[in-house]
């Protein structure tokens, strides 16, 4: 019995938002009478953190603390249209819509504050802690709460804003495929280390090192959630998952979580991640979207690591022990490549 270690890499990019654009999202932001804000969306939080990231975007744009903002998702009577939570479009598209709405609301808030402080709105700034003051004169200040009360009960203004973000739909040339698929791209490179059992074809993950470039990590903890969980899904796609184990023969489809294979808590490995931030020109605070691309480099990196370990190329997914073993037998045994 021999177990062989090997390392492999893959580098990728990923388009942000629906291909070709044409996928709008809208947001509404409004303040209650005490200066607390609600973001109304029809967008979905399916775990990726839509509520949380748009909350931070709104707070930053308004210039108020994050505690003063809550995001309401997905009620078709109150939330304006959104294309949906897919295609890594949430942070980018919805984030931009929220920014635009928050900017408009901020404009009204600053006007209302200017009226109360009897200054020009252009001379005001927010301190991010719930106050608005004259630039360079922090003592000439009013709280957002008092502004909201004044706007509502004295000035008769609604501190609210509307936002939409739309990347115009691109045409596609039938002959050349000329098109504008996306306005920005995220990037990644990942190194996988595996251990291959040359008698059984079993592959175990040893560790991963990666670098992901995402425009800006709006919330590093949420980014970490996506990247760690996404890399797990990449391992899962690489080595385990299929609802048709004998594709294209459809027989023996799994019926439960014992037959549908995904790595368990005992199959995971350490993963060191670096996050790079090259801001996208049209991203909210430069952000792209980490959600989808994070699994993609793992699949080929694992396949390439297996080659490095035992010298076989597996061109079919998932890379089951059977496929590895067949390939090892076909080449007459494991052929470990230069250790890297």
């Amino acid at each position: 019995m021999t177990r062989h270690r090997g390392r492999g890499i893959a580098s990728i990019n990923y388009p942000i938002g629906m291909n070709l654009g044409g996928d709008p999202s809208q947001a509404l932001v409004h303040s209650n009478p005490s200066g607390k804000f609600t973001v109304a969306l029809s967008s979905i939080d399916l775990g990726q953190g839509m509520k949380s990231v748009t909350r931070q975007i709104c707070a930053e744009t308004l210039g108020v603390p994050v505690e003063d903002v809550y995001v309401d998702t997905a009620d078709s009577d109150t939330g304006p249209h959104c294309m949906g939570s897919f295609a890594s479009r949430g942070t980018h598209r919805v984030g931009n819509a929220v920014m635009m709405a928050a900017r408009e609301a901020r404009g009204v808030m600053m006007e209302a504050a200017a009226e109360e402080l009897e200054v020009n709105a252009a001379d005001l700034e927010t301190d991010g802690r719930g106050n608005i003051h004259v630039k360079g004169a922090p003592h000439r200040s009013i709280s957002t709460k008092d502004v909201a009360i004044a706007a509502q009960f004295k000035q008769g203004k609604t501190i609210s804003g509307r936002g939409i973000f739309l990347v115009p739909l691109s045409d596609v040339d039938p002959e050349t495929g000329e098109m504008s698929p996306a306005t920005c791209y995220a990037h990644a490179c990942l190194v996988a280390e595996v251990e291959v059992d040359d008698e059984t074809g079993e592959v175990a993950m040893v560790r991963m090192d990666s670098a992901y470039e995402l425009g800006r990590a709006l919330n590093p903890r949420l980014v970490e959630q996506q990247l760690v969980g996404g890399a797990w899904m990449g391992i899962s796609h690489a080595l385990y998952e299929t609802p048709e184990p004998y594709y294209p023969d459809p027989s023996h489809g799994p019926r439960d979580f014992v037959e549908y294979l995904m790595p368990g808590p005992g199959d995971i490995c350490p993963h060191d991640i670096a996050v790079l931030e090259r801001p996208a020109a049209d991203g909210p605070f430069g952000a792209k979207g980490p959600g989808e691309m994070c699994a993609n480099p793992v699949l080929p990196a694992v396949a390439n690591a297996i080659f490095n370990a035992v010298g076989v190329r597996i061109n079919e997914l998932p890379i089951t022990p059977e496929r590895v073993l067949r390939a090892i037998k076909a080449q007459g045994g494991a052929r470990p490549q230069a250790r890297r």
Partner: protein
Amino acid sequence: MSVTVRTFTSTGEAAAVLSSDRSARYLGGGTLVMRALNEGDISISTIVRASDHALTRIDATGSRIIIGAGVTFARILAERDLGFLHAAARSIGGPAVRNMGTVGGNLFASIPYGDFTVALLALDAVVSVQGGLGSRDMPIEEFLQTRERQTGTLVLSVSFQKPASADAFRYRKIARIKPKGGAVITLAAHLPVSSGRIAGARIALGSMAPTQIRARAAERALEGRTLDAATISAATAAAVEGIAPADNALASGWYRREVVGVHLRRLLSGQE
């Protein structure tokens, strides 16, 4: 037709209903019957329970061990005298399933389930069943061959001779997912040694046939020999003789044939 639950204190009454009502199933730990109901199995319309304490008794003090059919895997894991069965018990489900699933129920679990039964087969267990007309003991192999019919009976207990030493009984479940995964292959070996030689070897395999089976050719290769490299090699080579495993979602028959010998060798030689 709705579902009726019937609870009895005596196993006799429970067995009488099971044998007379084709739609009746014994609940046991619930992991098979409740799943079937949840998934719309309308062939079940009576759930039978029995509260007889004998069903949950473990007698592990003597050389002959008796385990009630209603004993859960968690209880086996809590029983120090059953240490040789802990690996098999731990290989069933996650903690919740081990708190629910029973030894008796495992006898009815089809591939890719039923790992504990592989251990029982290697131990040459006797299954005590109660039918409508009375109870009887049958060798586990006979039970497994007639399993379809046994849903109309009530399994009371399993019993077997305790292995003479910790080394005489070995168990390994080959699963892709860790620590809880369905079996690619399950292996159990009982290797009694008499005067330094193996006498009465039993090798049992799961997922290598529609029910748990014995690797008889491998057993023959071990019989009367010492467990040295040559013997292990002979047993390994014979592991697939006469065995034609099928494809399922977890592995193909080809793969199972290819690796069963490898895993048997590792089990017999104590390798990881």
